[in-house]
């Protein structure tokens, strides 16, 4: 599409704010919901930027809420704090309804699940897609052409995020995109509906684990590493953290990288 620009790595990102667009009388096609992890976590910020690169590359008219965005309330809700969840949710809904938001893409399956499934009961009705679904849509529409680049022929295993997979039955979008990279897509025994959690969900990310004999992320990383992959692909910033730590636990970080599907696409195509 924009071939002159696409070869420039680390080009200046175009990240429009919703408030600015609206002030100019413009309406974005889609709202990019960045999420807390994608906004503040150093590793997850790279995923956020990869998603922006893809959005910029296809010239999609998008915007972020910026400082008007707040946590969806997911960790509070999973931890049983329904009050806090609803406070957060209603705050976000009033912002988004104020901007007349119709379609949202999220960088995190937890945000995706909460906005898509739980906001409607509180008056927030939007079409919500996870970034892997948007990328799949862009490829299918011919707006995004994808090559394998440096990943061509590499062995990649995809770890299903619980809140994308089991929680919402999205199993094929990330796999379809990965396969476009001309790679060997390997599957763990526990995958798709039987996928094993990375250990972060249910607010476990924010607390110590209970007494046991193993960490969940170590169990999961062990399963992925048994396939000897070049890349463990993920679609969730929390899975990313957990799997990265799990790979480090086995001192395999030289051989096996943990990358988000958006990063695979952006890197392979020099976006």
């Amino acid at each position: 599409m924009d071939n002159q620009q696409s070869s420039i790595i680390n080009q200046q990102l175009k990240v429009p704010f919703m408030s600015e667009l609206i002030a100019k009388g413009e309406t974005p096609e889609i709202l990019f919901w960045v999420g807390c992890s994608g906004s503040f976590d150093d590793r997850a910020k790279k995923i956020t930027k990869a998603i922006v690169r893809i959005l910029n590359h296809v010239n999609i008219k998008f915007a972020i809420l910026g400082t008007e965005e707040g946590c969806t309330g997911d960790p509070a809700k999973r931890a049983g704090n329904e009050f806090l969840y609803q406070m957060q949710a209603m705050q976000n809904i009033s912002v988004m309804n104020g901007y007349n938001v119709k379609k949202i893409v999220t960088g995190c399956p937890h945000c995706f699940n909460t906005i898509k499934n739980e906001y409607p009961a509180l008056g927030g009705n939007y079409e919500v897609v996870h970034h892997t679904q948007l990328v799949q849509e862009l490829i299918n529409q011919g707006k995004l052409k994808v090559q394998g680049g440096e990943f061509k022929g590499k062995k990649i295993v995809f770890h299903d995020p619980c809140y994308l997979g089991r929680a919402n039955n999205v199993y094929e979008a990330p796999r379809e995109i990965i396969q476009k990279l001309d790679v060997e897509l390997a599957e763990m025994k526990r995958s798709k509906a039987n996928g094993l959690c990375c250990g972060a969900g249910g607010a476990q990310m924010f607390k110590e684990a209970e007494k046991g004999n193993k960490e969940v992320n170590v169990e999961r990383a062990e399963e992925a590493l048994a396939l000897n992959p070049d890349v463990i692909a993920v679609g969730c910033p929390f899975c990313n953290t957990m799997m990265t730590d799990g790979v480090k636990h086995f001192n395999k970080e030289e051989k096996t990288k943990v990358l988000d599907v958006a990063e695979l696409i952006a890197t392979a195509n020099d976006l």
Partner: protein
Amino acid sequence: MISCIIFCLLLISASTYFFINAKKIKRNILLGRKIKLNDNKNKRFKTMLLVAFGQQKMFAKPIPAILHFFLYSAFIITQIELLEIITDGITGHHRIFREALGGIYTFAVSFIEILSVLAFIGTIAFLARRNLLKIPRLTMNELNGWPKLDANLILIAEIVLICFIFMMNGADEVLYSRGLSHATNLNEGSLGFSISRHLGPMLYGNFPEGGLHVIERIGWWGHIIMVFGFLNYLPFSKHLHIVLGFPNTYYSNLKQKGEFTTLDSVTDVVAPNFDPAYVAKTNPNNAQRFGVKDVQDLTWKNLLDAYSCTECGRCTSACPQNITGKKLSPRKIMMDTRDRLTEVGNNIDANNGTFVEDGKSLLGDYITTEEIWACNTCNACVEACPININPLEIIVEMRRYLVMEESQNPSELTNMFSNLENNGAPWQFSPADRANWAKE
């Protein structure tokens, strides 16, 4: 004539006793909170057809699925034979359907016999899996005592029942071939039952007439007594799933698994801050506690789940926390819920129909907070259950109780909550810096 009277008395007492206990279970289930699950009848019926009748989710593990299917189909088809036994018992006939049905009868009994042999194999294999192969999910500590005995008793009863069927049919085959059976003689030389026509002569070929009649009657009475016994054992056993599996799948959650319930009572408090014109959804005079402390706080569907659970442990063997040695076991959540509900039910029975506070509760006396806080809310247990039981909902409701009623949660979560409240993020970052990544 005397045998007809004895039979009728047995039939009436067995049905009455079952009816009384079934009514108690229904009453116990309805102790739960009211929720409406009668929408979308077509989808519900389809789910029941696929998941319960079709055993769809069992086939995630093919070997136990096939073995279970033998028992399941034998159980379903045997009901035809049971109908005849009951009719014979009341009227004093012998194989009353045979003359009327002719070839169809021979086919039906033959089919039942083949399924019974398969069920026999399945039962032996299940006993072996539990007691010799010690499949981990079938031998965990939470099954020690009654649950383990319960499982073995059912399997042994199944074997005894099958033996009675073959005693009855086998002895009758030999009697028939000698022209001594009470069954209508259709001049065919054999009753034509697929297994018994061979097995009968092999076992009882040399027996005198008197002995054969005794064996045939032991088989017949043994069979029906086992059935009556089994029926009345059900309300006290995990084996209730053979009945409740059907309604339980009918009332399955039809929403996405990721969608957790929204508490209207909370919305009524929060929403007016955003919308002054908001109209409350709940009646403040009927205020219920937030979340779940005891079984009466659960919904009737949660309680139906508990009675439907057959303790197979697929949930627990899929649970990431249990796999890594934590105390949490979704199966135990369901077993505890049923045990506490039984206790509450017995309390009501002992106190003329009203529950007298016993100082106990599901959370605390049965389920510990350590179990509740370990959950990843990953839905693996929900996905794994062959009859769509949802242990996760119970866990989350207990977290709600702990957080919103007791302010009891791990201290790190208190930090997360206050960060969320003050910074709009679960970590301590300034909300003003939220979009800084775009400039970095």
